[in-house]
Every structure is written in C-alpha cells, then in structure tokens.
C-alpha cells in the first residue's frame, strides 16, 4: 500500500482512541502515512489539507477479523476489490480474509493472489487467513509455516468446524511455532444435524429443523480443554450462545490464551426475527440467530470484555443462492457496511459503552492478530475512520458497495454512518455530500 506523503489535518471531531486512552475533541495530524500527532491545539500550515470532522467521531480505522471476500473462485459473489470497497465504506481499514475460497487458501499461491488483488485495489488492508487443514477437509494439517511466511496472520477452517479432536490438538500445537491463533468455527456437526436455524420455539413454529445452542458450547468447551493441553492460541469466531460465553469466561479466568469475536447480527437479532421475517433467507447464517437469552449473554460478554472484539462475518451470496427455500439457502449475510450502525444501536440502548464499542472494532482485533493499526498513537499507521453517529440513512441493498445484496437490514432506517475512511493517509472513501 502506498503511503501518502501529504500532511492532513482532521479537525474538530471527537477522537475516540481507546488504545491511547483519548476521548475528546482533538486534531489528528497525519503525515507520511502515519499518525504524526493527536492534540487539542495544533498550528496548521496554511496549505495543509483539512477534513472538518465537527460533530463526528474520529477513530482508528476499524479492523474486521472475519470477512469472506470470495476470491478466488466465487467472484460472482464478491471480489477482493468489491469487498475492500464495502469495507472502507463501513469504516474498516483492514480485514482478515477467510480461506474458504475456491480453491481454499491452503497454499502460498492463493495467499499471494489475495495479497496482489488487495494491493491492486488499494483500498483496505487485507490480511489473508490460511487453512488449518488441507482443503479444509479436516484430515491433514495445511502447510501453516509457508502460509504464515507468505502473509497469513491466522489459521481457520471457517465454515467447516474441525470435527477431529486429534487434528485440532495437533493444529493448536503446531501453530504455536508462529504464535498465530486458530480462528475456529465452533459447531458440533453431529448435533447440528440438518438444523437450519436455532433450536427453540421459533423453529418449532416454523417447522424448520433446529440447531441447538449446545452444538456450539460443546465445541468451545472441547477446544478450551485442548488449549489447556497444548498451550496453543484459540480465537472463537462468531460466538453466539450463552453456553459458549461461559466456556470462554471460564477459560480466561484460568489464564488460557482464548479470545472471541461476536458478529453484529448476533448482537442485534434473535431467532424470533427469523420467524417474523417469514422465512427470509437473509436471516439465515451459521451459527444461526439465537434466543433472546443468548443475545443478552453475548451483549453482556462484549461489554465486560469476555468477548474481545466485533467481527462481521461478512458473507456475500448471490440471489441465486438466497431466493430459494430456507432449507437449501446458503448461510451468511453481508456485514461490512451495516456493522457500525447496527452496533451503535446497542450504545443507544445502554448495552454497550461508546469507547468499548470502538475498542472492540479497533484495538482489540489488532491485539489478537498482532496487526499494525487499531490505534491513533503517534507512529501508528494513518488508518482512520470518521463517523457521523447521528446520520440517518436507509439501507438500500442496491446502493451497497458489496457485489451481493443479502442483508436482513434491507429497507431499514439505520443511524450512524461512516463519512470518511483513510488508509495509510490516503482518503479511500468519502460519503457523497448529498447523502450526508
């Protein structure tokens, strides 16, 4: 990524930077692709470029630990470029690209392709995630060493839980060589069975097969035990249940290297929303939308830090894969462009503090995956999001930057929107004036 040599002043905004403990009106000075200074009063040269951020939040660029960019192989759903465009439109300056592409990212060739496409796009920073097992088949370890050297920052068989406890044990052990976490999709497939939504009264009413919350809890509990055995690092993807929260909380209390993320949709919606939607497949994802009690548990866990970060699980699918029977529709929904406003609603409801929200989108994922960014301290990359927390907008799927349209928030009025995104000091996204 080319770093801007220009000097840029972001003035008048409320800087919220949990990493350096700043929360207040400040001027942010960017120079040479880095944060030069954050201060209350800064002399500005006459010719400096200025972004007026009055009335807005200025935060480190968001980092999304869980994004499906679909390239290579499924470019009809998304490409690295369109995904990166959606990212910066949502305030994300860095994303982790999950490896379940076609072919999956279990080789240096795929890792390099993703990195090359990201460099061509020149939008968000893209960090590839490599496979845990060859072909994500859950049988043999992928060549994690080569993948790590090529630029992968974590390993995952996301979408396909690692069913074999034996393989999971070896993966946790082997990945210790590189200090990289295993980002795991936790579902016991035998318990999931043919379940297509959360098991409970809503599924019963709809006559859809249930996927019990315990399918997640069982796997998280197993992997916590394996972390204890191996000393490895475990990052629980899209945690959705109260039982898994208990398992992670217990693991952290015991000092184990376990972290967790939660997706905005699990914070915002429940299985009752599936019922209310009338079988709308834009409410179908894995893990599924859970019960009200589960939602309350993940909200509380995010607020108290048991869940470290927010990650969108941005999962674009075409209409061909969604305009079908609920039973056969593919799992997953878009996340990048709605994450901020969806999570900001939790702040308005009093379920989450503003600073904790920003931390969960910035400093926390940077820390877990050892990434630059997530901070506006001097010397940090000049990755910045400017957000209007009061902006009202209508979520029109046709106007999203993603190639796909699968969002449960279609047609809904959203509050809170990214207005500017800078990566390496370059303005890579600016909301059109007419939309502000």
């Amino acid at each position, binding site marked *: 990524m080319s770093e801007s040599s220009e000097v840029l002043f972001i003035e008048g905004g409320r800087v919220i930077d949990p990493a350096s403990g700043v929360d207040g009106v400040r001027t942010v000075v960017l120079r040479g692709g880095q944060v030069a200074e954050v201060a209350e009063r800064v002399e500005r040269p006459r010719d400096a470029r200025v972004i007026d951020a009055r009335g807005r939040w200025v935060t480190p660029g968001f980092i999304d630990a869980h994004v499906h960019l679909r390239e290579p192989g499924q470019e009809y759903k998304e490409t690295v470029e369109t995904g990166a465009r959606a990212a910066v439109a949502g305030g994300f300056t860095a994303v982790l690209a999950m490896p379940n592409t076609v072919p999956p990212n279990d080789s240096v060739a795929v890792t390099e392709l993703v990195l090359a496409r990201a460099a061509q796009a020149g939008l968000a920073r893209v960090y590839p995630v490599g496979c845990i097992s060859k072909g994500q088949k859950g049988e043999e370890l992928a060549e994690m060493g080569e993948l790590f050297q090529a630029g992968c920052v974590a390993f995952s068989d996301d979408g396909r839980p690692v069913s074999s406890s034996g393989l999971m044990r070896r993966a946790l052990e082997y990945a210790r060589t590189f200090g990289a976490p295993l980002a795991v999709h936790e579902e016991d497939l035998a318990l999931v069975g043919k379940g297509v939504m959360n098991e409970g009264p809503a*599924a019963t009413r709809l006559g859809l097969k249930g996927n019990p919350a315990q399918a997640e809890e069982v796997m998280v509990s197993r992997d916590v035990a394996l972390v204890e055995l191996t000393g490895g690092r475990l990052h629980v993807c899209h945690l959705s249940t109260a039982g898994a929260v208990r398992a992670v909380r217990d693991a952290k209390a015991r000092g184990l290297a376990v972290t967790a993320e939660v997706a905005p949709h699990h914070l915002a919606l429940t299985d009752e929303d599936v019922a209310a939607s009338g079988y709308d497949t834009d409410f179908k994802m894995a893990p599924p939308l859970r019960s009200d009690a589960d939602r309350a548990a993940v909200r509380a866990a995010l607020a108290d830090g048991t869940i470290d970060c927010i990650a969108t699980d941005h999962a674009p699918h075409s209409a061909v894969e969604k*305009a079908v029977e609920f039973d056969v529709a593919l799992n997953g929904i878009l996340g990048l462009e709605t994450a901020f406003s969806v999570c900001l609603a939790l702040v308005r409801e009093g379920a989450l503090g503003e600073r904790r929200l920003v931390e969960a989108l910035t400093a926390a994922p940077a820390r877990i995956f050892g990434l630059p960014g997530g901070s506006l301290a001097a010397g940090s990359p000049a990755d910045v999001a400017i957000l209007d927390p009061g902006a009202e907008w209508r979520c029109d799927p046709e106007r999203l930057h993603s190639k796909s349209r699968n969002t449960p928030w279609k047609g809904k009025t959203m509050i809170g929107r990214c207005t500017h995104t800078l990566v390496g000091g370059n303005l890579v996204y600016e909301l059109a004036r007419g939309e502000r």
Partner: protein
Amino acid sequence: MIGRHRHLLGLEGLSREEILQVLDLATSMKEVLARPLKKVPSLRGKLVVNLFFEASTRTRSSFEIASKVLSADAVNWTASASSVTKGETLVDTARNLEAMRPDVLVIRHAAGGAPQLVSEHVACAVVSAGDGAHEHPSQGLLDCFTLREKLGTLEGKTVAIVGDVSHSRVARSDLHAMPKLGAKVRLCGPPTMIPQGIERLGGCTVHHDLREAVEGADAVVMLRIQHERIGDPLIPGTREYSKLWGLNARKAAEWLTPGCVILHPGPINRGVELSPEVADGPRSVILDQVQNGVAVRMAILYLLAGGSPAEVSAAGARS
C-alpha cells in the same frame, strides 16, 4: 379471500372467525357432495394448479375433486415429471406456472416456508397443501370440521395428538386452530418427538405417557409414524413404539371415554400407531375426515378463487 387473507399458508395467522368462516362454508359444500349430481358452477372458468413436490395421493386428489365439483379446471403438476430435476428453482417454476394464469396454486413441498416463498412471487392465490414440518392448513381445518361434526362443538373439549409431533405439520395446524375454537390440546409422544418450546405455542400440554394423554379426552388424533424417521434415531424401532404409544383395542376399551373419537391424517401404518381393530372400529372417524376434506377444500378454493360466503347459497349449495 379468507377473512383478510389472500393466501392460505397456515392456520397460525387465522382468527377464530376466519376459521369458522371456512368451516361454515364447508357445511354447505358438504351438502353438494351428498347430491346425486355432484357439480355446481361456482368456479366455472377458474383454473386450479396442484403443484406437488412431495408424493401425495389423498391430498392432491382431494383438491382435484374439490376443484371439479366447483366446475374449476384442475391441473396436476408433480415434481417427478417436472423441470425441478433440471435445476430450475422453486421461484422460477412458480413464475412459469403463474404465466399460465391460474387462479389458485396449491403447493405441497418438503421445505417449510416454500408456499410462502412462492406467494411472494406470484399474483394468484396460494394454498399450502403441506410444507415440511410447518403447517398443513387444509388438514387442520378438516380435523376441526370433523370434530365439530362429531362432537357438536370444540368448546371445552379435549383433544389428544399422539406421535411424531416434531415432524408433523398436521399437529402444528391442529394446534394453531383447535384452541381458537375452545379446545384443549394434549400432545403426546417420546421426548425425541416433541419439539422444543411447542408448549409456548399455547393451548396445549405435553405428555409422554399415552394413558395420561388419552384418558378423559374427547378425541384422539393419532399421527403417522414415518418409517424414514426410524434411522434418525428418534425411536429404537416400531415394535417398541407401538407398545408404548400405539393404540390397540385393549387400551382403547380401558382408557378412552365412551364418546371419544379417533382421527388419523392418513395413510395409516396398521399395527404401528393404530391396530386394525381400532382403525376400523366404531370410534374411528378416519374416513369421515377424508370426505370432509373435500368439502373443506371446496370452501378454501371457493373463497380464494374469488367467491364470497354470501354468494355460496345462491351460486353453490342451494342453486
């Protein structure tokens, strides 16, 4: 229209009055079926398409006969002879059929919600003839019709529904309708066949002991044990199932009240959920259900294809 509804996708959203509207009209329709000349011109020129993605003889024939008695044209379109195997989506199939200008599309599908998906993409009325484990509204209505006919009313009555409730769309439709008409429902089966949170649908209690469920009941609905579920594994086998949850002559004589009637949505697995003596015995109203099914479906088609209840006495039953 049935009350406010342009489609019949389930009984969950129907009010007591809307259910009674169909049942009352079905009473008039049943008179038509009793005549030597079973034909009225009420839906002449209307087209009903039966779109069946799952095997069915009873329900499909019932809708077909109902259409014909009302003088509508009926076309059957089954999945095995369809383009589904060529990879056409459900929505495409429905749009193609819609282009042939039917007035009512009757759909059976293995996926819950499939009729609703179709209803969002076509202009004609859509009737669910059973979708996955969701609902089978015409069956629920004919069960209510039969109970009202046999018991006089559902008000204050107790109905036991026994069997694989978790996979049963009939049980769900019964459960959405019967309490609205004043009945109490007892659901019974092994815990593996009772879905989580079903009691929260309201109007029902859950039992695992057959005797407890049927003693004092005014009616018992015995659900079909589908052989394909046995490997699921919800039960060890049919032998033990029939011992614990099947109804035979001895249990019926000892546990059922004298007036208690026995229903079954069919087809029966003789010797599994019902012994032959009970299925064919004096309490059984199973064949009445089949006959009433035609009358109820006539009422449904009449209302959704553009008739109004006021017209039926003139155009239908008494013309």
